[in-house]
């Protein structure tokens, strides 16, 4: 197919874009897999300690022992508490009451205020929990009660993700996002460019069936996506240690289907816009934000208000990511992803038919 060859040629000539297309997903994987972390550590804190006694000093030391906390400053007065938050220097301030040690030993009021910066709610709740746990443990030691009677010990086991590496969560998400964005963006822009320069009309008037003209635009990106898919998988498995616990075969089938859907989405976008700029704005900004935020990639969809969950159901990435997690991480079989496969297939068919119809209308 001469058209397809022309498309390939066009793409390969643009080395810069090629490079970005192939390298970007990998870099993103690495970045997000390793850099993004919801685990809290290295939180900076400050202390206001009017007691300066054995207990307070010990507690402050204990807080710093592991890498959860870093002592940033010792404050000299209550007034400084406000100021230190305003410069964003610390995430938490620990305020001790006076005569802390004495009160602690003799049953008086030994108070600790954990003032956390609520502007980052997650960190705030986690670090206050950590801190109070550490302080509680200190107290046990101090009181030298060898065994506290009637103690229930919860043993915690984390499944599938023993070291809580964030990568497990993000890799499927990044896969979903990259494929959708690259396929949808590339295809829509490529076609929009032809529209803008007027060459589209020429193509559509040629003896080739319109369907083939359109598809030929999508084919190179299809192959590019496959290359990307395999490289992403390779890096995930060999570099990041994210396993493919389930069937590789079904993972590929699923991904191919998803690539189809994404390409079709690109086709649809290009059928409604007239300029490259518009195609790009829609696919980059209009797709990217919802995909990132509503596909379940970053935030769990269960917490969202209903209408957002409905929107999320329309985003192909959401289904793909769900299915990938099931196969790659939970090691489930094909039966588990039947629903997702059906949804994606339906989306693909719907998108392609709508775009086709739009293109046909244009011809008439």
């Amino acid at each position, binding site marked *: 197919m001469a058209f397809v060859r022309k498309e390939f040629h066009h793409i390969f000539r643009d080395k810069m874009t090629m490079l970005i297309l192939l390298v970007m997903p990998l870099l993103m994987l690495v970045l997000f897999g*390793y850099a*993004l972390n919801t685990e*809290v550590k290295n939180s900076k804190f400050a202390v206001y300690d009017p007691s300066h006694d054995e207990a307070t000093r010990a507690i402050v030391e204990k807080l710093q022992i592991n890498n959860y906390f870093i002592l940033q400053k010792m404050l000299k007065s209550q007034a400084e508490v406000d100021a230190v938050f305003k410069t964003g220097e610390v995430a938490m301030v620990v305020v001790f009451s006076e005569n802390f040690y004495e009160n602690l030993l003799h049953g008086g009021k030994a108070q600790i205020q954990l003032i956390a910066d609520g502007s980052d709610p997650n960190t705030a709740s986690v670090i206050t929990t950590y801190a109070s746990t550490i302080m509680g443990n200190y107290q046990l030691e101090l009181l030298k009660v060898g065994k506290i009677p*009637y103690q*229930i010990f919860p043993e*915690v086991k984390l499944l599938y993700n023993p070291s809580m590496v964030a990568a497990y969560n993000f890799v499927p998400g990044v896969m979903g996002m990259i494929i959708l964005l690259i396929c949808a963006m590339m295809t829509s822009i490529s076609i929009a*460019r032809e529209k803008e320069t007027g060459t589209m009309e020429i193509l559509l008037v040629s003896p080739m069936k319109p369907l083939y003209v359109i598809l030929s635009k999508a084919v190179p990106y299809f192959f590019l996506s496959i290359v990307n898919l395999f490289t992403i998988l390779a890096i995930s498995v060999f570099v990041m240690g994210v396993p493919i616990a389930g069937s590789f075969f079904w993972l590929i089938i699923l991904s191919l289907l998803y690539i189809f859907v994404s390409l079709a989405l690109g086709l649809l976008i290009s059928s409604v816009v007239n300029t490259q700029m518009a195609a790009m704005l829609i696919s980059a900004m209009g797709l990217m*934000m919802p995909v990132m935020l509503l596909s379940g990639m970053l935030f769990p969809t269960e917490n969202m208000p209903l209408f957002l969950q409905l929107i999320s159901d329309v985003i192909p990435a959401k289904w793909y990511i769900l299915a990938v997690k099931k196969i790659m991480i939970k090691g489930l079989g094909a039966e588990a992803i039947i629903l997702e496969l059906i949804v994606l297939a339906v989306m693909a068919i719907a998108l392609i038919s709508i775009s086709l119809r739009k293109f046909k209308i244009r011809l008439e």
Partner: protein
Amino acid sequence: MIIKYLIEKEFKQFKRNPFVSKFVFVFPFIMLAILPLAANFEVKDLNLSVIDNNRSSYSQRLVQKIAASEYFHITDISYNYRSSLKSIENDEADLILEIPARFEQDLVRDQEAKVMISANAVNSVKGGLGSAYLAGIVTEYSAEIRSELMPAGGKSVQSGMDITKLFRFNPLLKYKYFMVPAIMVMLLSMICGFLPAFNIVLEKENGTIEQMNVTPVGKFSLILSKLIPYWVVGFLVLNICFGVAWLFYGMWPKGSLLTIYLFASVFVLAFSGLGLVISNYSKTLQQAMFMVFFIIITFIFMSGLYTPVDNMPQWAQYISDISPLKYFIRVMRLVYLKGSAAADLREPFLALSGFAIILNTWAVISYKKAQ
């Protein structure tokens, strides 16, 4: 002043572009309205599958206590680990609590008992926080038991430490307070990062830039004329964002608007400079788009938009240091939520100014009127 004519032209073209001019104002509105609703990490309504091998009054009380908490929703009480595991596999349960067969005996006689918590950690937030909460409830329960079974002697073990938690600036720990200022920054950066860059590359692609290159218009004037309209647009968008945030979320900056404007100006300067640099090195719109896209996505994630910079490994923190977004997001949050004043924000100001100077100088130098 030659630049007057250039700016006139830019504004006219912007107005005439039906898509871009509408998009630029509608998009922020929609994003701000919808996204903070989507974005949250609050952990509640976790599905818990319970395996009670003991079935004593003690174990049942524990289960009831957990059921009463708003964090957990008990999906089933099953009899073996395997079926509970299936619930996790089918995503029907997030955690499993297994109470061993000798729970009551261990607790009452040996004064020490264990329970097993297994958490689905594919979503590490849910897994981590969820198991922590559950463990917390278990510990609370054991303290209750202790005070019942050891009425008098218990006092000596009763802790003298009274720990209270206070959450400043966001007492109810609403996640949207965290997200909204950051989303504003993200929008601003997309509009000031994408658009001027595309503008120039578009002109390169259709040849009109050549017409400019052959005129006596200097590099500096040309670049300035391309930036100024987007600054104006950015400023307008920022104000729309304030309005939307107030309207939908009742959020109004605690600190001074002027401070925000000041920082926004420097930020927009820096970021549009970045866009310009990219456009100077791109020959086609596609190239520019991907470069911009890549940079923006990287910056957005690495700048503490959604996970704190402090959580990142050291090497990642270095990368975030070169992101103007990081500084501005911090500033936005500080001013919006805490009312920080300009004096508190000297460091980010210097950083942003530095970016602005370097990037724009680079943009002017790398713009070649002749090949």
